[in-house]
């Protein structure tokens, strides 16, 4: 009986050690003690948004490529904060923003960002990077789209798929920014996405996953898919798909960061959100973005927005003016 009590005591001790131990790595690897109170004692404190954290909802492309991790490390060097990155895709990120569950959004869908800001949820958008979408597919290219415009390529895929079972397309199908891009191309090519494309047959696979997983799925199915160039380059070594369509104004992919409106949700960490967004558009950070991936992939995954507002067609101040 005594033995059993000892075992029980040991278990309680172990549990106690876990409680202490894990709170100190709750923040991040450096384990700053100050950041660790929130996870274990949120019940009693009840105070929303501890200022040591900054919650960022982001598209999967920024996270899967590793860019955000690099920028996070750089930012945390001279700011007493732990960035918490929730990679979710633009649709879900906007949803988190509308519910006030995060402090900053980093997304890539100008149209929906505009609506989001018009509705008063987001403020102070800054554009910090861009690259291009591309249509990738199997080297055999059964629909023969190589070198076409994006719209013609989609028409060729759609028509090829009606007769040739080898023509398959994988869609993100998750309301992400990339999915929005794909829909925009279908619309521009003259199709009604909802009635003619989505759910229209076995040729059109709606994967419902992040960019990396979608590329792998397309690779397995030897299918076409739309990808941002950054994620494609980061995954190139693992998959056999090749870029087939890379030219066209519609393929421009613009990444914007904005803070959640503190007038809407008083508890958001607006001060640090501002710092972070201003950090993104500094020349030094823009240089990090320009250099990111060059060593590993032979070319940049993202281009800096600074100085390129004309290419992007966005207001100049969105690329260079710090939030006051």
């Amino acid at each position, binding site marked *: 009986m005594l*033995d059993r009590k000892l*075992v029980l005591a040991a278990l309680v001790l*172990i*549990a106690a050690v*876990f*409680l202490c*131990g*894990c709170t100190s*790595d*709750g*923040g*991040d*690897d450096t384990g700053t003690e100050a950041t660790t109170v*929130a*996870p*274990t004692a*949120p*019940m009693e404190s*009840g*105070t*929303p*948004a*501890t200022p040591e954290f900054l*919650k960022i909802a982001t598209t999967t492309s920024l996270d*899967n490529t590793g860019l955000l*991790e690099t920028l996070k490390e750089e930012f945390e060097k001279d700011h007493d904060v*732990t960035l*918490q*990155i*929730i*990679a*979710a895709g633009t649709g879900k990120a906007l949803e988190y923003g509308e*519910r*006030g*569950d*995060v402090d900053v959004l980093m997304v890539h869908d100008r149209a929906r960002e505009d609506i989001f800001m018009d509705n008063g949820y987001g403020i102070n958008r800054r554009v910090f990077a861009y690259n291009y979408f591309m249509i990738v597919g199997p080297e055999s290219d059964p629909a023969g789209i190589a070198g076409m415009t994006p719209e013609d390529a989609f028409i060729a895929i759609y028509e090829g798929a009606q007769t040739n079972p080898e023509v398959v397309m994988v869609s993100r199908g998750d309301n992400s920014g990339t999915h929005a891009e794909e829909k925009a191309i279908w619309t521009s090519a003259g199709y009604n996405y909802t009635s003619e494309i989505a759910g229209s047959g076995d040729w059109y696979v709606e994967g419902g*996953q*992040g960019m*990396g*997983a979608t590329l*792998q799925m397309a*690779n397995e199915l030897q299918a076409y898919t739309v990808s941002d160039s950054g994620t494609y380059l980061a*995954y190139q070594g*693992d*998959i056999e798909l090749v870029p087939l369509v890379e030219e066209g104004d519609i393929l421009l992919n613009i990444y914007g960061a904005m803070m959640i409106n503190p007038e809407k*949700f008083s*508890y958001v960490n607006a001060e640090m959100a501002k710092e972070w967004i201003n950090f993104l558009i500094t020349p030094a950070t823009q240089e990090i973005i320009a250099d990111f991936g060059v060593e590993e992939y032979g070319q940049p995954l993202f281009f800096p927005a600074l100085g390129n507002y004309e290419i992007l067609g966005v207001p100049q101040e969105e690329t260079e003016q710090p939030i006051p």
Partner: protein
Amino acid sequence: MWRCGVNEIVDGFLTAIYLIVTLNPEVYEVTLRSLYITFSATILASIISIPIALFMAFRTFPGKRIIINLVHTLYALPTVLIGLVVFLMLSRQGPFGFLGLLFTPGGMIIGQMLLVIPIIIGLTYSALIALDPIIKDTIISLGANYFQFMVSILKEIRFVVYATVAMAFGRAISEVGAAIMIGGNIKGYTRVLTTSIALETSMGNIELSMALGIILLLIALVLNFVMTSIRREGE
């Protein structure tokens, strides 16, 4: 590399051993966090559930049968449903939003507790009603008060309770749906073994995924070993 499945399993196993032996900080940290969250959830859920099971077994009250059926149904509660409901509850727009628990380990603990409470209640309850009535009568005839009675009864079924708690632990540590929806899979904060595996696989790091999966399996193995030895000692 992506297409040679068997090699990946072998590589994954070797990588797992390498990562475990060299105490790889990231793997170690994710594993500890998984254990911490699931330990907390299982212990808290047990503290809540066992008294409820005792109450249900020895008291009659209206609607008891319905509640028992409900508990049994909830064994199969889909984890993504828990994830969705807890997300809506803990979101800033939800009724418990003011707690600020969404995307925190605390929120994940709540999700896992909800997952295993029905299991602990249901299995403990079944063991209690299966108990030989002579044992109950004996304890009462020895003059036990209510509290002493409950403690004695629990002692009678302790091995079932241990096994139940272990099973609950296994279900909680291996689920991914609720963990990813409530925790958000934040690196260094709410990333646990299962959500890591999902992410690393989508990023093409198959060996690391396999390694983490093997660690998950090892935890189950150790747990099972401990359970078996406790039971053997009891017999």
